């Protein structure tokens, strides 16, 4: 990696930071309780749009893991999401009606909030349908993990996105507010992932899973990326480049070992495929606010119309993180 690339990436990082700084004006605060954030607190950042139904369980899940403060960007919800969040004692909310797409799918807003509030904290950046599991998450709080990462001088933690789906057509099991979505969407694909290394940013590019299998068989390069780095010890000069798939400086993307060993990693259980999905897909298609001209949602819509069941006889039923460890989807690394 030459000096030229290093310099170019440095410029890119500065550009993304500047962009986030400019985009801060699109956010108007609803409730900010960020003054309550204390040194060493765990912070979660998320962008939401009409997620009122999912939020109660989402908040409970991450509070139980030990997240101390939540920062939300509400992108023009009209279902009461904003008011619900504003009532929570450990939540700060900003709202915006500006284009999701033109803030690079929310990541500019997230970068700004992190720049402003994240410095020196471990931050979790997830969507409301993503649930972080990590080694020993059933017995050790998130703080145990971040303390260990600190002691090991590790600054970022990988958690691959694992698409969860129900057995049978997704409209068959209605989801109600406060319910654990993994009770419904509790199946996943255990071993059909492809990965390549991104030579510029150094991150792995992982694709596959049920979405590739069902919707992108003819067009595999368009299948969504599943590699994610949602847990970072944030410094104000860091920046997310493309969703949480990759960061700059590039050393933060080195979450995998190249000399045969396994680093510690987790999974983001992605409970997107609930009965709320069909409505969402239609809405998002109409909004045209998603990645690559909403190609993904178009593929879903077509796929969902013809064969609505993502389950197959080789699907695995989710039990716990140890199962994912054994299947080789995540690793304890040298954390024991």
């Amino acid at each position, binding site marked *: 990696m030459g000096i030229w690339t290093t310099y170019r990436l440095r410029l890119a990082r500065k550009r993304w930071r500047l962009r986030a700084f400019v985009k801060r004006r699109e956010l108007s605060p609803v409730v900010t309780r960020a003054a309550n954030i204390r040194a060493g607190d765990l912070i979660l950042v998320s962008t939401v749009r009409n997620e009122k139904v999912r939020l109660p369980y989402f908040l409970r899940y991450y509070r139980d893991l030990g997240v101390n403060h939540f920062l939300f960007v509400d992108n023009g919800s009209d279902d009461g999401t904003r008011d619900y969040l504003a009532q929570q004692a450990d939540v700060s909310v900003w709202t915006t009606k500006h284009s999701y797409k033109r803030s690079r799918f929310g990541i500019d807003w997230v970068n700004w909030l992190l720049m402003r509030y994240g410095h020196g904290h471990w931050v979790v950046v997830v969507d409301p349908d993503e649930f972080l599991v990590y080694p020993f998450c059933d017995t050790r709080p998130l703080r145990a993990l971040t303390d260990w990462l600190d002691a090991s001088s590790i600054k970022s933690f990988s958690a691959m996105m694992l698409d969860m789906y129900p057995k049978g057509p997704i409209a068959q099991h209605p989801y109600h507010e406060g319910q654990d979505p993994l009770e419904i969407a509790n199946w996943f*694909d255990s071993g*059909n992932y492809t*990965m390549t290394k991104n030579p510029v940013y150094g991150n792995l590019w992982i694709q596959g899973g049920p979405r*590739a*299998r069902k919707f992108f068989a003819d067009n595999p390069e368009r299948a969504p990326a599943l590699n994610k780095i949602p847990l970072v010890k944030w410094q104000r000069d860091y920046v997310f480049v493309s969703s949480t798939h990759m960061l700059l400086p590039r050393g933060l993307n080195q979450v*995998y070992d190249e000399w*045969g060993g396994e680093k510690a990693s987790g999974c983001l259980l992605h409970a997107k495929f609930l009965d709320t999905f069909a409505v969402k897909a239609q809405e998002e298609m109409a909004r045209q606010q998603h990645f690559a001209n909403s190609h993904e949602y178009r593929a879903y819509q077509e796929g969902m119309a013809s064969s609505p069941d993502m389950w197959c006889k080789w*699907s695995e039923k989710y039990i716990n993180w140890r199962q994912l460890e054994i299947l080789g989807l995540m690793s*304890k690394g040298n954390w024991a």
Partner: protein
Amino acid sequence: MSVGFVMLCHTALDRAAQVARHWAERGCPVVIHVDKRVKRRHYERMQRDLAEVADIRFSERFACEWGTWGLVAATQAASMLILREFPAVRHVFLASGSCLPLRPVGELISYLDERPRTDFIESVTTEDVGWTVGGLNIERFTLRFPFSWRRQRRAFDTYVRLQRRLGVRRRVPKGIVPHLGSQWWCLTRQTLSAILESPDREAHDRYFRRVWIPDESYFQTLVRQVSTNVESRSLTLSKFDFQGKPHIFYDDHLQLLRKSDCFVARKIWPQADRLYQHFLSADLGSQALAEPNPGKIDRLFAKAVERRTKGRAGLYMQSRFPKANWENGMSAAPYSVFEGFAELFESFDIWLGKVAGTRVHGHLFAPDRAQFAGGETVYNGALSDSAGLRDYNPRSFLVSLIWNTRGERQCFQFGPEDNQKISPFLARDPNAQISVISGAWAVPLFRANANFSDIRREAARLQKIETEHLEVLRAATTKAKVRVWTLAEFVENPMEPLQTIIDEISPRSLRRLTEAPRMADLTGFGQFLQNLRNQGMQPVLMGDFPAGDDPRPQPTRRGRPYLVK
């Protein structure tokens, strides 16, 4: 009052105070050293918390940066204090603020009472040490280390390299034989005072002040001069990972720690409430006087280190993506690739599945779809049969299949009509057993109902592809187990090669092959090849089939027996 504790603390002072109080209230005096870099108000709060406990003292504070002399200075000061203040103390136990007693103090006291003259300190000569990280053993004693390893890593490394190149050496003082060991020890009053009151202490201190990580060598070395009874092990259970950083214990280690029968463990995560609550509760113990037995914990952590350094063979995932030649197993298990067999034999896959008891796929890399065994459209791990997904990353496809089916050997067919992008991987993988009947692709052409000019064109194409494939297999870098027969050779005597392959796939089935697969009828094949030649194509991969002289394969002929009864 036979044992006293020296505690070195730098974080989580509330936990350290809790443990100190536990010991002091059970009759063991404690001297606490708090790192000078800890904020004054934290230190004073700790002092206030412990003010009402009688047998606790605080010693003079030193700044204790890891790897530097400060830790030894702190230990010396605290040890002198405990020896002076508590004359009844016979053993001094060095502990840290993140240590936790696992057995009642009474058991430790009676254990030491039975061994009143024994010094428990791990002390190993530098030649025999296997655990130092970073390659500095004897060089800890012979080089100079003016730079901080934590803060000035580059300067540290450069200066070490420079000294090595220049051959600069410090002289080890007379009478000192460098020893290393865990810094957590338990020494008798006699030994400890002999070290601390030695007339040479000035000289020793001056020398060790510049040694790298002196807390792992100062007492460990000097104890050899004064003690008559060194038991070279630590009473503190402390495990280190591959970077030399201590493993941390959490609530879920409770049972493991209980069964270890060790006296003290470090390091404990400060928020491991259940551990502190359990092991510091009053009604613990009533176990027999067992020897410490950390075997199970050793294994747990040894496995963690192995996972971090070597990983699981054949696994490619988000946090393990080895570079070429660092895979430590390119695939998870051995597998077999058959080229030309399905063309030469009828229902070869069914026959093979029966005799070898394995999973036999068709052409996994066929142009239209992956032909999984049993015609499945989705296979283990929800692997799709779509050619598009497979060809997007053939290597991921194959390693996923082998990983997903661990425990069951996979066999599949391959040939020149298939996607060739996988062949360099197959050739490099030591787990691949590749058996090739070269030129067998001509058999289906021979039996095809097609215009001869089309057949000729197709034959030329396939021959070109297979020639290139064979070149890949014959390259010097090939690690796979490759066997190549020409079609002519194979037809001559099919049983012996088949037997060899089957023996390799299932070495424990000692049965001889009794039933051969049925070979395609090759009457007129020689003439067919001659016709190709007459049309200007040169079929070479099949070997020598004279026109008109049709082979007479005897499928039921038994090969040479291995064993004569």
